[in-house]
C-alpha cells in the first residue's frame, strides 16, 4: 500500500538496491526479527481489543458483526509478517571518513550525517529482544536541538562496541 509510488528511481522491493544506490551498509538481517517481535507485542493487544469491541459492542447494537475483528487481525498479521522485513531493509548506515551516516525509511526517508567531532557522548544499548538475537543499538548524542540523539539499531553487539570505540577516539570537546 505504501510502496506503490510512481516514478521511483530505485526499486523499493529490492532488498539491497536502496542502500546500495546510496552507498550505505545494511543493518544486520536479524533486526527484522526484533522489529517483528516488537510489532507482535504492539499489534496483539490492539487486535484483541478490536475483537472484544466487536463481540460486546458491535454485536449488541446490531452492526456488521465480525467485520472489525477480521480487519484488525488481517492488519495485525500484515504488520507482523510483511512489514518488519521491509522496514529493516530500509535502515542503512555508513561509518568512516570521520562521520556517521544513518538513513531510514522509504516513504519519508531521512538521511542523517553526524561528524564524529560533533558527538557529545555515545550510548550502546541492548533491549531484551535485541539481546535474544545478539543485537545492540547505538545512540549518538549531539548538542544540536534538532537531532540531539541519533539512533542506529540492528547492529551486531560486537560491531556496535567497535563503532563506539571508533567514534570515541574522535570525540573532542570544544567547551572551554
Amino acid at each position, binding site marked *: 500500500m505504501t510502496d506503490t509510488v510512481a516514478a521511483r*528511481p530505485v526499486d523499493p522491493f529490492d532488498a539491497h538496491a536502496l542502500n546500495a544506490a546510496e552507498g550505505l551498509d545494511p543493518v544486520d538481517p536479524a533486526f527484522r526479527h526484533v522489529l517483528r517481535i516488537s510489532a507482535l507485542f504492539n499489534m496483539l493487544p490492539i487486535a484483541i481489543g478490536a475483537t472484544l469491541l466487536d463481540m460486546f459492542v458491535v454485536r449488541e447494537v446490531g452492526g456488521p458483526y465480525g467485520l472489525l475483528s477480521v480487519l484488525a487481525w488481517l492488519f495485525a498479521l500484515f504488520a507482523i509478517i510483511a512489514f518488519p522485513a521491509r522496514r529493516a531493509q530500509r535502515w542503512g548506515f555508513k561509518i568512516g571518513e570521520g562521520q556517521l551516516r544513518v538513513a531510514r525509511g522509504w516513504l519519508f526517508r531521512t538521511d542523517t550525517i553526524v561528524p564524529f567531532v560533533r558527538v557529545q557522548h555515545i550510548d550502546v544499548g541492548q533491549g531484551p529482544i535485541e539481546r535474544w538475537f545478539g543485537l545492540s543499538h547505538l545512540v549518538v548524542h549531539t548538542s544540536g*536541538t534538532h537531532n540531539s540523539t541519533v539512533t542506529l539499531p540492528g547492529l551486531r553487539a560486537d560491531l556496535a562496541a567497535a563503532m563506539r570505540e571508533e567514534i570515541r577516539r574522535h570525540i573532542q570537546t570544544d567547551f572551554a
Partner: protein
Amino acid sequence: MTGSAAARPADAAPQSAEWQRLHPATLALAVVRLGPRTLNFLPALAAIGIAGKWVYVLPAFGAFLLISLVTAWIAWARFRFLVGANEIVIESGILSRQHRTIPFDRIQDVSIEQGLIARALGIAKVGFETGAGGDKKDEARLDAIGLDAAQALRTTIRAHRGDAVPAAAEPLGREGDAKTKTPATEDRVLFVMSPGRLLVAGLFNFSLAALAVVAAGMQLFDDLLPFDFNIFNPLDWFDLAERYGFEQWIVAHRWVAGVGALLSLLFIGFASGVLMMVLANWDFRLTREPRALRRTRGLTTRTDVALPVRRVQAAILVTGWLKKRFDWHELRLQSLASDGEKEKDHQVVPFGHLYEIDPVLAEIAIHRPDASQPWEHSHRIIAAGGLFGALSAAAGGAIAMMLGQPLGGLGIAAAALIAAASLFSARFHSWTDLPGMVAIRRGWLKPKTTLLPYASVQSIDLKTDFILRPLGLATLVFGVPGGSSLGSHEIPAIPLAAAQALRARILAAGTRA
C-alpha cells in the same frame, strides 16, 4: 563582600573564603510572595467558615502565615554559599541537603536580574549560566544577594575566566579580527534604544492582544468609574449613538459610531504596543565586553545578561512586511544558553536599522549577504502542505454545508485564504551560500533571515519523501545547538544535487575545524 575580595588573588587558599548567606532582604521578598499564595488558602478558610467554625478562621490564617514565614526563614537559614578561589559552592535544602560546586571555568556567565521590589530593596537575583542543557529550573541561582555583591561576584568570575582562557585556542576568524581592532579590556556601546526609538518601535509593535486584558479590566472596574462611558470600549460608542437620540442622524451617519469604535481599537493597539516595548526595553544597552556581548534592559524588571561571543551559534534577522519598508529590523542570536525562562534566543537588537545591526554582526564575525548576492529559491512544491490543509478545510466546509449547516461556507472561505497564503508565501523561501556560512530566508508577513555559520552545524538531515523524490528534490535540516523560538533551521525542497553538494561543503568545513 568579603568572600569575593578574598578570592580575587588566584593563589588564595579556599579556607580564607567564608560561607555567606543570602541578603536578609530576601526574607522581605518572601513576605511579598506570600501575598499571591494566600489566595490559594482562601478557599480553605471559606470552607472552615461555611462549616460554621468562624472562631477558627483567624487562628488558621495566623497559623498559615506563621508556617509560611518560618519555612521561608528556615530555607533562608539553611541556604549558604561560598565563593572560593576557583569555584562557587552552594548548599541548600531544608531536609534533603544539596551541595553543589560550580568551577568558575564552567560558568559561561553570570546574569543579574532585578524585579521592582528587588530594586527598591537593592538586591538582585544572580543566575549562573553553565551551558549545561536541560531544565532551566536546574540552573544554579542566588535569590537574592545585594546588588553590589552580585556585581562584585560577576567581576570575580569574569576576571578568573579572563586569566584562564586565553591559553585555549580561539576559533579562527570568529573573534580574531574583532580583537585586534580594539583593546580587549575596553567595553564599547554597540546599540542603545533612545526613548524616541522606543516610541517608534512601540508603534510598530501594534497589538490587539492587550484588548482582551483591557476589556476584562473594564468589566471589573466598570462600576467604579464615575461616569458610565469608557472611550476604550467600542460598544460604548454604539451606546452613545443610541442614547442621545440622534437616531435619524445616526442611521444616516452610522460611520460616526464605526469611526469611534475603530479609533478606540487603534488607540488600544498602539498604546499597548508602546507600553510593552517600553516595559521590556527601557534603557536598552548592548555593549561589547572582552568576551561577551552584554545587554541591560527593562523598566520594572531590569535584566543584565551577557552572551559569550564564542557561544553564538546563529544570527536571525526578523522584520515585518511593513517594518521592512522603513528598514527596521530585529536581531536575535541563537546561543547555547537560553535567554531567561521564556525565550530561547537572545534579542540583541530589538529594533534597528541594518547599518546599526551590521556592526553587531561584525562582533560575532557574521556578515550579512549584500544586495548583489544571488538567492536560490525553494521549489514551489512546499506550498503542498498548506494546499492540503486548505483542501481538508474546504472538504469539511462542503460536508457541513451539505448537512445543512450554512457556517460551512466559512470553512470554504478559509480554505481559499489558506491556499492563497501558502502559494504566495512559498515564493519567499530561498537560500544562499556565503563563505563559511549559509543564509536562509523565509516568510512574507514576517520575513526571517537566518545566518548559520558552517561551524555551528552539529548534524545534517537530508530528507526526501514520496512527493519530493519524483521531483528530484530534498530538504536539508540542520542540527544547531541552542533552541530558537523561530523553529528549526531547514532549507526545504531544493534540488537533490544542490542539497548533497551543500551538505558535503558544510561537513568538510566542520571536520576541518
